């Protein structure tokens, strides 16, 4: 009984610091109106992703349905965003496109981090030839403009959303290597790393338990800004025609088709375009805000 009570107090103690931290984060974020906007936009994005299937009006329009009698109708009560060239409800497709975009963005970023972060830490911590090898390879990848590289890879692999995601992951991982290698280099010289060595910590422990946790802040900032950009790039590829293929309700692909129907049937391209705009803007603003929050200088502690 007593053991149970002390367990609760223990939990409370352990979490106290984290709770304070979260409150400070919220306070700092709320200082900047732009970050709040970014945060709200992203919140909207995630909410729609979650409840998407329940708020669409024409679930069958997502993929295959064709209603030629409904085609190219302007926005109305029945179809708030209008219909496309085969009569599908654009509103439903845009909403489901949200889910799709999230998936795409997440997979790209997670894979890129999964490759880039470990390489970056190894390069930074081990130095020497390992560092040189990894960084030079990274430099080669970084020397090619992202979209071009992605196009080249997709060109080789063939069009399709899967290949587009592979291509974009390959474009994205070098950025993480750079970021993490730099941070690791500076962390390596910190006293607490020396202290860890002096108590007998193995290299493995130092890398995972000391260096990696201190890298998370810049990684989070980068990842949140990258999400928006990854979604944008995926849409670019879809727009060009090598990304998601119709009839997938991917925003870029939708704009690609809708482009042909401008300016009379403006709604086909506009609504997916606005969705991309809002999403990328939201992630960028949020990323900026997070950078301010996580930067120890501006954490608002005046001594």
């Amino acid at each position, binding site marked *: 009984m007593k053991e149970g009570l002390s367990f609760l107090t223990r939990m409370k103690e352990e979490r106290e610091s984290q709770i*304070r931290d979260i409150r400070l984060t919220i306070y700092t974020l709320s200082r900047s109106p732009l970050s709040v906007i970014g945060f709200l936009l992203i919140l909207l994005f995630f909410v729609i992703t979650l409840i998407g299937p329940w708020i669409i009006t024409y679930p069958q329009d997502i993929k295959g349905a064709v209603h030629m009698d409904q085609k190219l109708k302007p926005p109305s009560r029945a179809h708030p965003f209008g219909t496309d060239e085969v009569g599908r409800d654009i509103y439903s497709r845009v909403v489901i496109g949200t889910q799709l975009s999230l998936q795409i963005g997440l997979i790209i970023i997670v894979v890129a981090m999964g490759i880039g972060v470990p390489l970056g830490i190894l390069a930074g911590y081990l130095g020497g030839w390992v560092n040189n090898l990894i960084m030079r390879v990274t430099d080669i990848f970084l020397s090619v403009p992202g979209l071009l590289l992605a196009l080249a890879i997709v060109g080789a692999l063939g069009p399709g959303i899967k290949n587009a995601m592979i291509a974009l992951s390959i474009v994205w991982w070098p950025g993480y290597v750079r970021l993490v290698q730099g941070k690791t280099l500076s962390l390596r010289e910190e006293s607490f790393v020396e202290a860890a060595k002096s108590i007998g910590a193995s290299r493995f422990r130092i890398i995972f338990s000391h260096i990696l946790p201190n890298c*998370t802040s810049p990684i989070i900032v980068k990842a949140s800004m990258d999400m928006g950009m990854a979604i944008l790039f995926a849409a670019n590829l879809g727009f060009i025609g090598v990304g998601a293929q119709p009839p997938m309700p991917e925003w870029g692909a939708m704009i690609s088709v809708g482009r042909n129907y401008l300016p009379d049937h403006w709604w086909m391209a506009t609504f997916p375009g606005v969705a991309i705009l809002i999403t990328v803007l939201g992630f960028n603003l949020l990323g900026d805000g997070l950078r301010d929050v996580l930067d120890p200088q501006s954490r608002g502690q005046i001594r």
Partner: protein
Amino acid sequence: MINKTEPLLEVKDLKKYFPLRKAFLKKGKGSVRAIDGVSFSIQEGGSFGLVGESGSGKTTVARAILRLVEPTEGKVLWKGQDICPFSESEMKELRRNMQMIFQDPYSSLNPRKTVFNIVAEPLKIHKRIKGRKLRERVEALLEIVGLKREHMFRYPHELSGGQKQRVGIARALSLQPKLLILDEPTSALDVSVQAQMLNFLESLQEKMKLTYLFISHNLAVIRYTCDVVAVMYLGKIVEMGGAESIFSSPRHPYTKALVSAVPLPQAEQPETAILLEGDIPSATHIPHGCRFHTRCPEKIGAICESSEPNTNYFPDGSQVDCHLF
């Protein structure tokens, strides 16, 4: 110093040279001679002080003893055994006996770890204790250094400088070491707290039978805490002996200048302050002969510029490296 028992730690002719990398032209070797032949010994239970300014090499000595940097030459004897050739795993074992308390409490604690994890880490690495036993050990350690349970799950940025320093001490004590190396333990602390910390360290030493190696540029701290003092300049020990005699009647001109440079908090300021001209030479261009001759107010002449002085020993066990003797 006149002691028949074997010293706990002995350093013999320790040298550490850091190679200077030349960018393109590979002509000429350069190295930073951070320590250039340092020898001393510390008796068990004693407090040994290493004093010097920037470039003296005192911090490098500490790191070389712990093999956080590899000595270029010389021996480090722990209980008579040379530990320089020890392998990684042998060093890991040995590290339980020698611990260091780092200078800057702000950066010597991992900002992402709670106090608990910081102090528990050595125990996790060496003793593999877990769960409740681990918690009890950490609580006991925190109590020894005067921290309370409520501090246990705080992060370093939520603690004051003095508290951070205490966490560092708790971490160092967790493995029950015999030797504690303290690198400027009070320089980041407020004046009114410094004395408390030093008193605490002294009582700790008695209670846990520790041996101390103090490193500081603050002469008052060293005088307050140490029995034996070595004064370092540009990588060498220029004078060594009992703390009281070194500070009250210094022999080496550098020691004299150092002692007179300390600003005394008192109404009457001594008129004669020995002021050294010029800067401390860079460790990459160590002067020929006696390294101090470029600034020495008691320079004899050519002999100081051409040859390094030998160590002169005195009957009370103290020593001086100077041509004046």
